[in-house]
């Protein structure tokens, strides 16, 4: 598993993929951060992290599309599958490699928050007010963790889709489709207002279920800086389910 992890990490950086991912991710993150905080004179980082989730829908598939699709196309999976490595080890190696790159990128994008702290310190010195000014570190940590977990779920889904096909492009497109669908569900759920009776989905039970399974709506607590254990458990379970399915796909292919 470690060998595969190392190889994956290396291949992100001997291919353009890793650089493209980092470049796009960091550029967008910097832009969004500037726009949502400095530009709008706010210390609230919630919308920055929330928008990053939307961005992840497009760029995480960049990271995951090649994981299995390429191995299959190049027939290199034959080497992995005939080596003394379990399929689980292989899947985990690839998953953690993608997760580390994503986590690293997310961590690096937190550099954008440093100006907020500097400005916060200045404002505090100026105003002497009793209301704390400046960004809230606990909130940022909560939001960061929430986004990291959601990223892990997205990566697991991407890895799973990549194992289904041998074409990288279709792996990316399908992954984007699946991730977008998850978001759209969430949006549909919140369209309209209760008072005006313009809810798109009127049935409370349906809305409840959608809300329950929605990856994004579970992010709400993180947004406020809470560590929502049930949500973490939910995200971990989703990761587990999709990685498990990936392993099963490989098992099934052997038996086909």
């Amino acid at each position, binding site marked *: 598993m*470690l*060998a*595969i992890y*190392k*190889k994956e990490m*290396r*291949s992100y950086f*001997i*291919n353009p993929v890793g650089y493209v991912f980092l470049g796009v991710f960091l550029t967008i993150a910097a832009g969004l951060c500037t726009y949502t905080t400095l530009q709008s004179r706010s210390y609230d980082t919630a919308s920055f992290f929330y928008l990053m989730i939307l961005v992840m829908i497009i760029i995480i598939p960049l990271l995951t599309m090649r994981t299995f699709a390429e191995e299959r196309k*190049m*027939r*290199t*999976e*034959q*080497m*992995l*599958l*005939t*080596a*003394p*490595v*379990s399929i689980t080890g292989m899947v985990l190696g690839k998953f953690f490699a993608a997760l580390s790159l994503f986590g690293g990128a997310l961590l690096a994008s937190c550099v954008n928050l440093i100006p907020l702290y500097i400005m916060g310190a200045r404002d505090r010195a100026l105003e002497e007010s009793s209301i704390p000014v400046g960004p809230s570190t606990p909130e940022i940590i909560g939001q960061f963790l929430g986004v990291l977990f959601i990223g892990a779920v997205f990566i697991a889904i991407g890895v799973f889709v990549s194992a289904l096909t041998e074409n990288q492009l279709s792996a990316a497109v399908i992954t984007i489709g699946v991730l977008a669908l998850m978001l759209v569900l969430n949006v549909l759920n919140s369209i309209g207002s209760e008072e005006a009776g313009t809810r798109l989905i009127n049935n409370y039970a349906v809305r409840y279920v959608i809300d329950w399974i929605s990856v994004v709506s579970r992010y709400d607590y993180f947004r406020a800086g809470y560590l929502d254990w049930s949500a973490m458990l939910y995200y971990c379970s989703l990761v587990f389910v999709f990685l498990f399915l990936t392993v099963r796909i490989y098992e099934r292919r*052997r*038996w*086909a």
Partner: protein
Amino acid sequence: MIKISHLVKNYGSFCAVDDISFEVAKGEIVGFLGPNGAGKSTTMNMLTGYLSSTAGSIKVGGVDVLDDPLNAKRLIGYLPEQPPLYPDMTVEEYLNFAYDLKGCKLDRAKHLGEICDVVKIGDVQKRLIKNLSKGYKQRVGIAQALVGNPPVIIFDEPTIGLDPKQIIEIRNLIRTLGREHTVILSTHILGEVQAVCDRIVIINKGKIVADELTENISRAVENTRRFNVKISGPQREVLAMLRNMSGICYAEVLAARDGDAYTYMIESDVGVDIRKKLFFTLAEKKWPMIGMEALGMSIEDIFIAVVDKSGGERQPAERKKSRSIEAGRAAAEKEMADQIIEKTAREAENAPAEEESAPEGKYYEDYTPASDSFRADGGDKE
């Protein structure tokens, strides 16, 4: 070392491998032959744990490939039909990856250095695999299979894309490996099998149709009673003499003519070596014999005959070829094919129904590389 019993593989309703059983002893080099689509690669993929079998069992060094895949795979080095290379890696990175992947415990630099020497890729170590020529890629694939010095090495068509000199080198390498390792080799090139393998297994339509020692087949190939003799002399008299000579049961003139010399095809009686007697008789008559060629069957002929016999479709070109060689030989091929097929069928019947409880004590536990050096056992190479 390798024990395959009653192996079956179905792809849906298509049966790719149909009840195959054979064993390979330690240090044996087995050639695995068969026409396209015979099930060679499927069998190899099952052997290496890439595919699973529908029924039957495969044991490598006493370890069942399905029960304990990791330990079984540890014993096998595999070069698939298409070498599994990462084009974006350099050769060095790739071999290091193979080393990590297989969890080797040997001295890394020394071991990889030796492998590079053996397959002669030392000079391209720093180059990207995608920029290598086909022959080099193939050799990097072979190198990958050798990493970790596994006791069983399986090559699926190893010499494809190599130039003749490299082919000879690789054959020598395989022969060297055969001293310490068990090698299974699949190939279309029959001469290769003859040159390298101790034993030949021919498979067709998912069934083993022949399983013979190469020696026996070679003997059959050489052991012939037919000759083409080129004799300079009056055609009719020579023919009459040949027909009347004791020990010759059949003679005819072939069309080929060379000056006043004609070519005669003769067949001797069983168990008689006619060649010396013929020479002296002709010398006496002052009809110089200017050429003699034994009409042995080539291994190709036997292969075609065996595959043909077992129900394969003979390609028109092959039919034409074996016809044009000479009519009488078809009978001999058939005979040979019959013998081989019968023998194999008999052995298959006698194969144990289910593997008798193999001696406990797993092989991989005792396995310590006798030498972690290829050079040590490759001393007399070239």
